[in-house]
């Protein structure tokens, strides 16, 4: 048992925290999309989906990210939306 690791292992390596934070912040920096623009997209998506389902608006997460696509060397931008659905509305009504 490594003498030091008993004390240091419990905490997550700070460099991993840095790397994750950096990746996230660069997604925004690189995407030239303003937060206002994202809010507008979010508002419209909520409107459309609300017609069909009840959603938890406080938990919605919308962000720009870069993804590697097959057959494409450089990463492409993608809009990722995570929208928790509470209840599907009854279509018969």
């Amino acid at each position, binding site marked *: 048992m*490594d*003498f*030091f690791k008993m004390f*240091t292992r419990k905490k997550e*390596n*700070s*460099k*991993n925290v*840095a*790397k994750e*934070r*950096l*990746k996230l*912040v*660069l997604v925004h*920096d*690189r995407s030239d999309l303003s937060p206002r623009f994202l809010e507008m997209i979010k508002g419209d998506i909520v409107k459309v989906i609300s017609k069909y389902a009840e959603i938890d608006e406080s938990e919605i997460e919308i962000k720009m990210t870069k993804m590697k696509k097959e057959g494409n060397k450089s990463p492409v931008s993608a809009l990722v939306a995570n929208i928790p659905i509470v209840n599907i509305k009854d279509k018969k009504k």
Partner: protein
Amino acid sequence: MAKEKMGTAIVITSGKGGVGKTTTSANIGTGLARLGYSVVVLDADIGLRNLDVVMGLENRIVYDIVDVVEKNCKLKQALIKDKRHDKLYLLPAAQTRDKTAVSPKQMVELVNELKKNHDYVIIDSPAGIEQGFQYSIAGADRGIIVTTPEISAVRDADRVIGILEANELHDPELIINRIRPDMVKRGDMMTIEDIIDILAIDLVGIVPDDESIVISTNKGEPVVMDDKSLAGKAYRNIVQRITGEEVEFLNLEEDSESKFSKVLKLIFGK
């Protein structure tokens, strides 16, 4: 009349201040001169002149870059010859002017003029991405970005890479400065691989955080001249890579273990 050369202009830039642009410029310039190349190091940080003190030439300045651009003197009159190297010259920044004193167009003309008589023109860019940055990259053929393994410096480096690309300065290369191998080993500093992975550009050098840099700057002697210094070795490697040679990267982790932890390992076993 001497034959005209067609030298290469390399801008040293970073976005964030305080990551070691000026030290890097001085060492690359000096290192190239030691290999026999004719070099001008150009301080583009008008108003915050520093390359002169890092190179130990602060007492020799008569004219500066703004004097040249405004034609108060000839270009040759403003070039300060290095104390130790025959083919190394400094073109100092003006200290009492601001960054509006030189336009990108004037900079292009100036750098092209220097390239005629020298193999390399090393441009020390100011921090930031405003006007000073814009003219400093204007005449450059290649870009070298300096960063440290900190989140703020890497973020700014990413931004600068984007701006260089937008200005048609393609394939910039990266120097990661002030690496602390002991912290990397503990997992408290991003690794070289982490940073390359995020920025996705080619690496031209890694420089350890080394006391010898502070000491050599105190004396006005670039550390690249110090044969015993690890940072000096790192800069000599960078210079060789710039000239197109393939040199292996330093293994910084080798000597990173402190004596203290070695002793502890002896006592407690692995």
